[in-house]
């Protein structure tokens, strides 16, 4: 999909090529207006330029003080061995060298990537499917509201529920399994814990991203679809040539949001530890849990701030590269409508 994206020419207004075929071109030719090119010289733009710094300053100041400063400090700390109390002991790149040889970290990093890609792809595919089904379904507002609901419940509750659903042998899922197939179901929490966590994350996030994508799709004027219907388009064609290109920006932005925020997924995984004081098993750790386990977490915390910072730096760097790639891959000309 992304491979077909049109390379962006700066400033020039273009329609995405996919909607440029004569057939859909007519449907799209509606009163619209050109996207502002950078450096446009109208008075509105000039005024906005003047407001740029005054408007940005308060948020930027908070951001610099509470994120950039501490993050730079953490970068500095990552070149040291430090327990948070005593003197920092410089180690150069030693932490990083150890990190790339540490099976605990590599496993956690792999899990982070699995969550990012697998949960992300599934969530977005499902969200689009739901959006298409919901588009002209009765009770869509209600449905949408209900789908969003897991997002507002504390993750610790969801995983307690998840435990009752998936525990074996007597969990609800396996009881149903037995009733249907007569055989014992898989040992979800014992043998497939990470799969269960992935499933739970898809469930929680699908509601959120469905809402986001629906909001984007809803902005597409309905008369476009009517034009399509007149032209005899099938549902898939309408999705491919109208819905997708016109909601592309929303999807691209949501994808960036998911990519970055998936790094910080913590509570839902953490709550699969036995008690509130226990880390979950090592093989389901993601990078956020690795950071916690290397600093405050567990029954005998390690407080290795230098090493934990290095792991966060590596993860964040990897994801920043991914975000840049993602933005490049998904870049298309803005279609204003």
């Amino acid at each position, binding site marked *: 999909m992304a491979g077909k994206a049109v390379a962006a020419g700066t400033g020039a207004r273009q329609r995405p090529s996919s909607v440029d075929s004569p057939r859909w071109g007519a449907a799209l030719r509606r009163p619209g*207006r050109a996207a502002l*090119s950078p450096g446009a010289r109208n008075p*509105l733009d000039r005024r*906005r330029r003047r*407001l*740029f710094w005054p*408007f*940005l300053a*308060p*948020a930027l100041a*908070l*951001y610099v*003080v*509470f*994120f950039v400063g*501490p*993050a730079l400090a953490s970068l500095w*700390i990552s070149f040291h061995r430090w327990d948070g109390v005593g003197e920092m002991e410089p180690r150069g790149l030693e932490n990083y060298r150890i990190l790339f040889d540490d099976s605990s970290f590599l496993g956690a990093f792999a899990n982070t990537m699995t969550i990012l890609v697998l949960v992300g792809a599934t969530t977005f595919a499902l969200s689009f*499917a*739901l959006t298409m*089904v919901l588009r*002209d*379904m009765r009770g869509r507002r209600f*449905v949408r*509201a209900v*789908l*969003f*609901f*897991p997002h*507002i419940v*504390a993750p*610790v*509750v969801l995983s*307690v*529920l998840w435990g009752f659903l998936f525990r074996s042998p007597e969990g*609800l899922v396996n009881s149903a399994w037995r009733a249907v197939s007569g055989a014992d179901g898989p040992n979800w929490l014992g043998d497939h814990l990470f799969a269960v966590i992935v499933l739970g994350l898809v469930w929680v996030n699908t*509601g959120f991203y469905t*809402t986001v994508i*629906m*909001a*984007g799709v809803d*902005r597409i004027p*309905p008369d476009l679809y*009517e034009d399509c219907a007149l032209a005899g388009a099938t*549902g898939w064609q309408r999705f491919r040539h109208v819905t997708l290109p016109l909601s592309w*920006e*929303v999807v*691209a*932005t949501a994808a960036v949001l998911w990519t*970055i*925020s998936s*790094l*910080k997924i913590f509570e839902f995984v953490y709550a699969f530890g036995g*008690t*509130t004081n226990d880390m979950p098993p090592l093989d389901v750790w993601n990078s956020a849990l690795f950071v*916690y386990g290397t600093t*405050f977490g567990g029954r005998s915390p390690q407080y290795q701030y230098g090493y*934990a910072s290095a792991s*966060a730096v590596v993860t964040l760097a990897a994801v*920043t590269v991914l975000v840049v790639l993602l933005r490049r891959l998904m870049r298309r000309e803005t279609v204003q409508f």
Partner: protein
Amino acid sequence: MVARSLRAERGPLRRIGTAGVWLLVAFNVGVLGWLLVAALREHTAIFRDPWGLDSLGQFGNFVRAWSDSDFGRAAGNTALVAVGASVVVVLISAPASYALAKTRTRLSGMMAVLFAVGIGIPTQVIVIPLFALMQDAGLVNSLTGLFVLYVALSVPFTVFLLTGFFGSLPDEVEEAAAIDGAGAVRTFAQIVLPLARNGLLTAFLLNLVGLWNETFVALVFVQDSAKQTLALSLLGFLQTQQYSGADYGALFAGVAILVVPMLLLYLWLGRRIIEGMTVGAVK
């Protein structure tokens, strides 16, 4: 016309999809229902039969959860800090997002990315420098300090969300206002902000949900039990399961006490929020 487009889609695929949607809805409603039912059941009954209804009506669970976790005192703190911070962060982020969304220069693009990266920084990594910072400012163990932290830590996500939202607003109205001679600040305050109402509400609610459930920052930065937040009280209560024994009825009651206000707020504001979720584009 609409009827025709609908007819065109009545395929088997669509019927499966619709059934799937209702199944998912039933599941989510079931989750909420189960939580509220379990909050009114007796501990051993929950374990004997998690999906049953016996022993329903244990209102004592709520009394126990409320008093044991000291929710009364925490409720006021949370209302002040979480609600206050959610409002203030939106007020601070809105102009910044507007500037980033509507000034399409290389610099604004870089700034937008810079803010976005902040969403991915784990709090555990910056907590020690943050603690040193707050310590020097004399803001450790104070609700003011927690409030400031909550505002600051919510900035990246809020800016990200609102930048997208402002980007999706049409320019025509502002152009008209400019032609009428309205000043830029006035245009922003009186024309753009009201237009962006749903986006601002969305940002407010999503932040509130996040801060309402936040525990780690509160745990590290607040030591006085009189200054605890609800989420922290609930955590402390959950942890007494170790050594003092589990009571899942009361546990769910405590959780319900935390969830229900958010649920009501969501029911009240939900429609607008959903309409405000247009993340639009970050340039």
